């Protein structure tokens, strides 16, 4: 709770080799999502309590208010971690297109979640469409660029 699990998720990503994918950690991911719902319940119950006591949420700064605030901030932090995890993985997945090409080898594909697999296909289609429009294949000649 309070962002620890989410932090673990991001740390796991950050400690991996740069540009390399490990399997999508759906266990940890689901745990963070579940914590988010839990934080929302606690946030709502604290606000309800203040409302029942006829306290103005905009002005009153008591323990319940700060408790609710902590839950809100944890939710935001969890969201940032979940998004960072998925967004940065998506970035690696897009770079695979440049590095490996439009068909992924089995051992890499296994590491993607189902949604990530779909995303890879869609992005590959978008890139192919662009290249067909400009009539230039952008995937060739990347090695010369690195050496030159």
């Amino acid at each position, binding site marked *: 709770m309070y962002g620890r699990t989410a932090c673990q998720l991001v740390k796991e990503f950050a400690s991996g080799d740069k540009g390399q994918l490990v399997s999508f950690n759906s266990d940890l991911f689901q745990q963070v*999502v579940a914590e*988010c*719902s839990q934080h*929302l319940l606690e946030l709502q119950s604290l606000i309800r309590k203040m409302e029942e006591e006829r306290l103005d949420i905009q002005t009153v700064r008591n323990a319940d208010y700060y408790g609710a605030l902590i839950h*809100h901030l944890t*939710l*935001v932090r969890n*969201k*940032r971690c*979940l*998004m960072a995890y*998925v*967004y940065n993985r*998506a*970035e690696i997945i*897009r770079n695979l297109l*440049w590095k490996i090409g439009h068909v992924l080898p089995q051992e890499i594909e296994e590491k993607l*979640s189902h*949604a*990530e697999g*779909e*995303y890879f296909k*869609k*992005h590959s289609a*978008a*890139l192919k*469409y*662009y290249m067909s*429009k*400009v*009539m*230039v*294949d*952008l995937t*060739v*000649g*990347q090695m*010369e*660029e690195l050496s030159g």
Partner: protein
Amino acid sequence: MASSSGAEEASLDDYASLIATTDVELLKRAWRNEKAAPEILRYEYRLISRVKEQIQLMEETVEEKSSVGNDPLSVSLYQMDLDRTQFLLRSYLRIRIQKIEKYMFHILKTEELWSRLSKDEKDFARTCTSDLNQHLELTVLSKLPENYQSVLKQSITSEEDDMVPEPQLDTFVLCRSKEYLTGIQLEDGPADDRQFSSKLFEMEPGVLHFICYRSIKALVESGKIDLL
């Protein structure tokens, strides 16, 4: 070689100098700038369409020459020139596409950057953004409480878009001016320092400088300064 007619040689010289002194050099400059700038620059629409025409012309020349088959040396020279131009074009377009991939949300919502894209790049950016949006939606956002579902904002209490990755404009770049420039405001160092002793900077033509991109951003856009 000596047997080939003088008129033909002259026209070849013209053709060669046309290629060497104009558009390919311009493309190389646009490519260098694009490569070194942290943000996406204006799409060189006219230049790129001219370069594409020239590539086609060169391809035809190479084909014609190699079908005659009596001058392999000049064919290979034409081929090298063609390869070089194609490499620049591909690399230029690729760098731009990779910038769009990296900063799509920022580019899509920033009018100034959006207007710098070619039509095909805009189409790509739109598809690209909606694909990633959908992916984030499906994997993360739909599982979060209602007030936390925006892709651009952390929660509904955020006043502005605070979840959009932007290019780092404070990065340092290597650059060179073509003319004498003066009155460049250096935008590094703490903000209040800048107010009191507003350091104005001068640039001699052809001298290399290592400078914060933000300070010379406008001069790169107006073509006065080249990045390296």
